[in-house]
């Protein structure tokens, strides 16, 4: 509808502007918003920043007697040597020409860092034979007398041991996970050391042979600048964008819900409708709250971009991504706002609103639940299908387009834009129809069927 045509039909943009400004002012310039929506998240981010300090790993004391049952005592001896090394680590004199880390570390990125235990490792290794009676040893483990009991099958020392063979590690119920991990890891490494020595091979040479080289990846930008690859950030950024969009959209939409209910319950709605049309009121409220969401987007977005700039990773968020994000945000916000305003107009209090909002919330929660699978596989069928589902489509598309982990097919962006824009127009139209009838209704809340009937009412 053109401006002139809208004005001629009684739709006054000056009224919409007044409503929007009141809505914005009475939401943003309040203690609740400043503390809840602006200050609190920054405090939260600050706390997250401090988390690594607060939760930093402290050396875990590992002391006690460990009983090791092996075929010939070589593994027990290797474990004893390893624990001694943990206790008195050798300072590296110069960078080793060949890798000195154990082969398991190469293949097991989750292996605990031995340095964590270096200060308080005092493990006495007592070797027993495999065929001796282990019942009393097990009882001592159960009672916490021993640190643990490790049984290493003799076949593990063969040149090509069966892959089905495992080392048995028995620890007390109260054993800390890190202690258990250290015992397991030391037993595995010692087995490899003993095996290599038993077959007359050179351990350092073997390690050098199986050493995995590192990689240095860079992405060549359109301007020809090669930017270092940061896979982790490429997963995190879409999540950040999506959560930012979700929080901004829902904070504002929730305000729409509560202010509409408040206007109804305080009876001010009839006064307003004597001055403006329901459509003007609806548009004014949605525009006003969209400004509120823009304040949130700008604040959080600027903080996020500043963080990326500080980490020299600003190239991960090009301007085109931000612009596209704003388009998706507009669609997502309008969809959520339409639903919330329609519900707010139809009910008399927040309790009644819950039952009507719940189904919509389930749909809108989908992007949050599917954040990781969609980010990991943005071209998969799940991500593609969800992009076309009204209400959650814009959120999913933000996940798919802001990370560029895997470029999505080019046709999908215009097509999903088209589909989601149509869905947005439909939802806003429906909300306007429901709002027009609902704001003057009192009494019991309508059923979803009644809401549809209101939407069809001329």
């Amino acid at each position, binding site marked *: 509808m053109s401006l002139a045509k809208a004005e001629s039909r*009684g739709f006054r943009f*000056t*009224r919409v502007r*007044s409503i929007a400004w009141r809505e914005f002012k*009475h939401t943003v310039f309040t203690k609740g918003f400043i503390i809840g929506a602006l200050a609190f998240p920054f405090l939260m981010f600050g706390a997250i920043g401090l988390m690594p300090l607060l939760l930093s790993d402290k050396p875990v004391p590992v002391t006690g007697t460990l009983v090791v049952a092996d075929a010939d005592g070589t593994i027990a001896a290797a474990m004893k040597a390893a624990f001694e090394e943990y206790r008195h680590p050798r300072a590296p004199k110069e960078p080793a020409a060949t890798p000195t880390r154990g082969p398991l570390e190469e293949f097991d990125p989750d292996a605990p860092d031995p340095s964590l235990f270096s200060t308080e490792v005092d493990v006495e290794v007592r070797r027993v034979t495999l065929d001796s009676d282990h019942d009393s040893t097990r009882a001592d483990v159960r009672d916490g007398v021993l640190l643990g009991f490790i049984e290493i099958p003799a076949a593990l020392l063969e040149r090509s041991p069966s892959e089905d063979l495992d080392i048995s590690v028995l620890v007390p119920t109260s054993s800390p996970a890190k202690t258990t991990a250290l015992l397991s890891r030391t037993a595995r490494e010692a087995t490899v050391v003993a095996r290599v020595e038993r077959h007359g091979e050179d351990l350092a040479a073997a390690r050098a042979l199986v050493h995995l080289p590192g990689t240095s990846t860079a992405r060549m930008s359109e301007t020809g600048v090669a930017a270092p690859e940061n896979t982790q950030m490429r997963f995190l950024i879409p999540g950040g964008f999506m959560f930012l969009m979700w929080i901004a959209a829902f904070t504002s939409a929730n305000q729409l819900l509560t202010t509409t209910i408040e*206007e109804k319950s305080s009876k001010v709605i009839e*006064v307003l*409708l004597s001055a403006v*049309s329901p459509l003007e009121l609806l548009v004014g409220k949605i525009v006003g709250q969209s400004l509120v969401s823009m304040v949130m987007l700008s604040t959080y977005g600027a903080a996020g971009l500043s963080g990326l700039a500080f980490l020299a990773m600003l190239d991960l968020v090009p301007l085109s991504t931000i612009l596209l994000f704003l388009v998706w945000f507009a669609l997502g916000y309008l969809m959520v706002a339409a639903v919330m305003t329609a519900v707010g107009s139809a009910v008399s209090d927040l309790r009644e609103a819950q039952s009507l909002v719940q189904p919509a919330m389930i749909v809108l929660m989908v992007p949050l639940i599917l954040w990781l699978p969609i980010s990991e596989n943005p071209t998969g069928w799940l991500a593609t299908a969800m992009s076309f589902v009204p209400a959650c489509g814009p959120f999913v598309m933000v996940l798919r387009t802001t990370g560029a982990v895997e470029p999505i097919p080019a046709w999908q962006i215009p097509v999903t834009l088209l589909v989601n824009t149509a869905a947005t127009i439909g939802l806003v139209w429906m909300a306007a129809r429901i709002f027009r009838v609902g704001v003057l209704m009192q*009494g019991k809340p309508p059923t979803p069927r009644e809401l549809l009937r209101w939407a069809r009412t001329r």
Partner: protein
Amino acid sequence: MSSHAINGRSTSAVSLRGVGKRFGAVDAVRRLDLEVGRGQLVGLLGPNGAGKSTAIRMVMSLIRPDQGELQVLGGDALDMKDRIGYLPEERGVYRRMRVGEFLIYMGRLKGLPQLGLAKRVEQWLERIELPGVFRSRCQELSKGMQQKVQFISAVLHEPDLIVLDEPFSGLDPVNARVLIDAVRELHAQGRTIFLSTHQMAQAEQLCQRVVLINRGEKILDAATESVLAQYSPRAIEIVPLGSVDEARLTAATLAGIEAVRPGSPARSLVLSLQDDTEPQAMMATILQSIGCRKIEMAQVTLDDVFVRLVTEHGGHSRIPLGGAA
């Protein structure tokens, strides 16, 4: 009464023809015909649940009639919002908003320019005897004060038509008097005023014309004076100097007196006249026979007419169930 047009301009500020509205099984308004001429002050009277608020909401285009034609200022109320002032029955203000800010906001919505609006609001607050509340929050005001604030929001933009739904309900006599004076003043300025009330005394004081509806139907539509004249009881009210009982006995013997009954206050008597009795002559006869502290023609009140008509038309209305508020 029909709507007239002079040079294409309707002379009716409000025109309803055969308007009806039904909520579920209840007819809230039935085939209502009503004309409010420009510059008139018309009262819409009726008991609770008679359909007054429904009729007014239809006039304001807040709800659509199921049948009939409706015109406000010659068109649709939706297109005339800036020329209409409305005080709804159910009052509402933004509780946390400041009074001045609320009224300025309403003025802006009614199309008033920002320039000079604050001054206009302050003038109205003074006029309505609410000085010094400009910066108070609405929730800090009493209910009556909030009602006066709402009244200002209805008239601030100097509308051609002012529609007031129960404007005096809940107000103490002093504040009711302030609003009555303001309404009179607005009417004197040539504005059309259409108000609903079930407080007959105020309607009698204010309205040029009254329309009485009951059970959604119009049962009376006439000038206030003619209603009072039409329902005049043809009786003389006296307050005797001596014993009331003796005065009653004496009065009953007078020729031309049909009946004698106690009046109000308690020491007064109402003497009903026979149809052919000339009131002035009878007053002279009474004065010769009974010593009177006070003697006057008994007057009917709108309240009496209201009770009589509503009772004749089946008593109080049913309250519409559900539907729009």
